[in-house]
């Protein structure tokens, strides 16, 4: 049987998560949480996750704030569409976006951002061509959407992950 490398950070994270969820620091839960953290991180290491290098804390904070603002804005925009008149000048459709991102963690983060902002939906990422297909609820102009996704989200993600 192959030895799996121990992942101290994952184990520690799981341990803190356990204590947070149970809201206690009693001995029983420290023991249980420790066991859960060991088993969990061992299971994770069996998946052989890639090493992640994250830089630029400032960029992370700026991106998070930007995403929070965008989530609120797009919630309002989609709410308007839903409550607005049934017949309206609106076209929904698919957009193909060529991406430079290749880091799987960065792509996963982008996936979370795109689905968390209502109005855009992650459909498919073609790893060989490097194109991302998204579905947009209110598609005014394809090139605007491509520029938005690339400029607002992809560039900071490139800074953070690659």
């Amino acid at each position, binding site marked *: 049987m192959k030895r799996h490398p121990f992942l101290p950070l994952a184990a520690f994270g799981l341990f803190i998560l356990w204590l947070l969820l149970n809201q206690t620091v009693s001995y029983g839960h420290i023991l249980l949480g420790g066991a859960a953290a060991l088993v969990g991180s061992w299971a994770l290491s069996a998946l052989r996750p890639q090493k992640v290098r994250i830089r630029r804390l400032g960029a992370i904070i700026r991106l998070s704030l930007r995403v929070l603002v965008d989530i609120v804005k797009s919630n309002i925009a989609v709410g308007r569409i839903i*409550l607005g008149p049934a017949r309206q000048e609106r076209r929904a459709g698919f957009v193909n976006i060529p991406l430079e991102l290749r880091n799987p963690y960065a792509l996963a983060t982008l996936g979370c951002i795109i689905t968390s*902002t*209502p109005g855009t939906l992650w459909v498919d990422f073609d790893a060989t061509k490097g194109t991302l297909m998204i579905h947009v609820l209110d598609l005014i102009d394809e090139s605007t959407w491509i520029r938005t996704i690339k400029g607002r989200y992809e560039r900071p993600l490139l800074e953070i992950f690659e």
Partner: protein
Amino acid sequence: MNEFAKLPDWAAIIIAILILAGAATTLIGSLGLWRLNSFYERLHAPTLGTTLGTGCIVLASMLCFSVLQTRLVLHEILIAIFVTVTTPITLMILVRAALFRDSVERAETLSNMHDGSHPATSELEVNHSRPPEAT
């Protein structure tokens, strides 16, 4: 009455506003499931509940119990994180299943038309905007 009566007025008002806002957002999202036209459009609707809806209610809960217990209660953040990380998976599976169904139906319709018979399967949902390329 109960321990919620101990909440100071300012906190009670903010919490009430947050809960109502979260519930309203989620309700609008659910209405979207009924009002929007195609499957792909309807997929956008529930994300209102999973983002701003959940966010407002999580904030309200954090504020409420932080004030009541006079300590910072933060484990609700975990709910927000888990919801944010898991929703994309469900949505991606749904949208890709729909794309697959569409491409199968289109192929069937084409072959049916070739046979000269009636394209029965395509009548279910014809109102899609088609993807730019088949996958």
